[in-house]
């Protein structure tokens, strides 16, 4: 995919379909070690061991069970084509964790892309059912966003309501710009 944020969107959609009610996204931009790391963890229904072994085989997921799609296969090859690594662990009824590493300055690494839109759109469409924790590290600086904390301040207002998601969007944008020191993605 053209942007890594689209891979992230694809994975958290999987989590939602697996009936997770908490998804944790961690993005680490470690320029010192020339590493970009993305970890997505959910508490959904999980994947059994047998299926997990073949989860990135596109033919297990492409035609017969179309609902899963090529998403994980593409994410894996995106990481591997940038001298990175890809891992997926899962336990039934506990959840799933997807980890992708990229060599930060690899010429074929897709840009992170519009992560603000990915997060805020997901909250706007599924925020009432699914909580999201998003942590973004840039070198030593860190920004953390947790829908559970926002909900506790909201009282009767839905987190999916327009004024809240507009605020979330701005909040993420400002904080990302701050930890990244105005550095563009």
């Amino acid at each position, binding site marked *: *995919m*053209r942007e890594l944020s*689209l891979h992230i969107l694809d994975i958290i959609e999987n989590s939602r379909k697996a009936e997770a009610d908490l998804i944790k996204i961690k993005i680490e931009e470690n320029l010192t070690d020339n590493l970009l790391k993305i970890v997505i963890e959910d508490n959904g229904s999980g994947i059994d061991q047998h299926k997990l072994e073949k989860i990135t*085989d*596109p*033919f297990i997921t*492409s*035609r017969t069970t179309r609902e899963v799609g*090529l998403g994980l*296969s*593409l994410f894996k*090859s995106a990481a591997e084509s940038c001298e990175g690594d890809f891992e997926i662990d899962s336990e039934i009824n506990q959840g799933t964790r997807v980890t992708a590493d990229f060599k930060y300055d690899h010429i074929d690494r897709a840009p992170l892309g519009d992560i603000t839109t990915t997060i805020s759109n997901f909250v706007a469409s599924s925020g009432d059912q699914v909580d999201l924790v998003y942590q973004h590290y840039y070198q030593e600086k860190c920004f953390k966003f947790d829908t559970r904390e926002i909900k506790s301040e909201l009282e009767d207002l839905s987190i999916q309501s327009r004024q809240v998601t507009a605020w979330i969007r701005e909040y993420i944008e400002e904080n990302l710009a701050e930890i990244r020191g105005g550095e563009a993605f």
Partner: protein
Amino acid sequence: MTVKELVDQFDLEVVAGPDLKKEIDGAYIGDLLSNVMARAEKDNLWLTVQGHQNVVAVALLVELSAVILVENFDYEENAVQRACQKGVNLLKTKKKSYDLACSFCESNI
């Protein structure tokens, strides 16, 4: 035009040819698989530099007539196996995508 006729006319190498009678309708060029999934059309030829098994999966999903790996790149072995199993045609050429596409264009493909 069928894939078999294309192979003969443009001197392409058949790496996996389980269904060479397939009819061709146009072509698409690209190396970003998600984009090919979104934009290529049924029965298109697909010119690319990617030779791994995800390519076969995309060709199958979009129902492409054949994949043409350009610039003398090689397909991975599991891609060739999968293609034979799933009925996806895999071709290759030494030419660059642009040059091959130009010769296709001259023949009204």
